[in-house]
């Protein structure tokens, strides 16, 4: 398990960052441009918050990246369910899944730019990154389904709906939960990277790129903080939903 983020530790690093930024500004002409301080980044974030453009960019990126995540999760669940009892389908899907896992995301982004318009890019890339971990983990979970319970269900003629909630869902949910937590981190990183390369108008990625071009490092940090908050918020929301399902399955 990853160590917890302790407030004192975070505060210490923020202080170090503030000190480093001030030292750089004092030592090098224009040093403040190279490394904005956390205070500057926070101030810039507060300036951005009331603007409609900020919410539009955050909304556009969230919609596309989380949309790609949800679509891919659904597809991965469906295909893993179908592939669980069909080794030929597992074999058929193995090469593309391995390719998506191995090929650098930048290659896919550039390739996708040839096929798609830049607005669909983050949706596509996010979906692409999510599929392998969710599909492989759910498949692993289904492979471990308790055969004895399946036999019980056969003898007692338990209908499919009850089998799904009683046997499959509790078996697969822990696998799905850990995979979706991993995939959520991946899809936000890859999705924003796709926006930075594809530059769709009115997105977080475009704002990051603009901040880089004009050396607006406070903006860069402010938007990075926005990405972290959005990713963490969506992850919490999604995992709370999954945990609700776990509780329902266990009721």
């Amino acid at each position, binding site marked *: 398990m990853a160590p917890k983020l302790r407030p004192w530790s975070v505060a210490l690093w923020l202080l170090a960052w503030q000190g480093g930024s001030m030292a750089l500004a004092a030592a090098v002409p224009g040093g403040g441009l190279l490394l904005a301080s956390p205070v500057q980044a926070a101030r810039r974030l507060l300036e951005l918050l009331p603007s409609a453009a900020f919410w539009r960019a955050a909304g556009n990126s969230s919609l596309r990246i989380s949309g790609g995540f949800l679509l891919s999760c659904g597809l991965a669940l469906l295909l893993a369910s179908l592939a669980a009892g069909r080794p030929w389908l597992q074999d058929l899907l193995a090469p593309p899944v391995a390719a998506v896992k191995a090929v650098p995301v930048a290659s896919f982004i550039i390739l996708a730019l040839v096929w798609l318009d830049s607005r669909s890019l983050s949706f596509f890339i996010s979906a692409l990154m999510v599929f392998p971990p969710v599909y492989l983990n759910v498949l692993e979970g289904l492979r471990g389904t308790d055969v*004895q*319970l399946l*036999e*019980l269900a*056969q*003898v*007692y*003629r*338990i*209908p499919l709906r*009850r089998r799904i909630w*009683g046997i499959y869902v*509790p078996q697969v949910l822990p696998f799905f939960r850990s995979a979706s937590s991993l995939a959520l981190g991946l899809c936000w990183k890859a999705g924003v990277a796709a926006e930075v390369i594809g530059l769709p108008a009115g997105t977080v990625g475009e704002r990051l790129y603009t901040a880089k071009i004009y050396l607006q490092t406070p903006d860069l940090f402010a938007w990075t903080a926005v990405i972290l908050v959005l990713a963490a918020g969506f992850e919490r929301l999604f995992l709370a939903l999954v945990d609700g399902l776990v509780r329902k399955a*266990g*009721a």
Partner: protein
Amino acid sequence: MELRVEGLCKSYRGRPVLASLTAVFREGVTCVSAPSGMGKTTLLRLLLGLERPDAGVIHGADCLWAAVFQENRLLEDRSAAANLRFALGEIPGEAGDLLARLGLELRDPKPIRDWSGGMKRRLALARALLAPSEALALDEPFTGLDEENRARCLELIQERGRGKPVVLAVHGLAGLEGAPLLRLGEP
């Protein structure tokens, strides 16, 4: 109603477990006795349709079964009531009384993972006795039970098994002296 098996053969990896078994299971309890590994569970699995025989035929087994397996096969993280709901759909009105006769509490909200082995075994038996069925297959249902609980369970099996074939695989035959007996693994 009766079940008949004729010339039933089953081998695992070349080792014969059942060799040309012929038997009839009439209404009421029929005991199946054998040393460990001599085909009791295999016979029950064949009757339940969970395995196919290598040779021979089974007549009448295509009916509505309820069973106690060698393992309890319960949902460990759920309560007794939830386990019954999972297997039976709805909890029959008589469930509370039947469980009470087995020394169990239907409304116990604890997940059954917190129960003792004997309590789980009795719940597995209660599930089989409460399920609508035309035949019962009970694979060593008294495992882990003391004398008193064994006697209670046996009384309920005889009571609830009336009018249907009950195939009861057991090690010890105490209390079952009058029941037809099929011995497996004997020359």
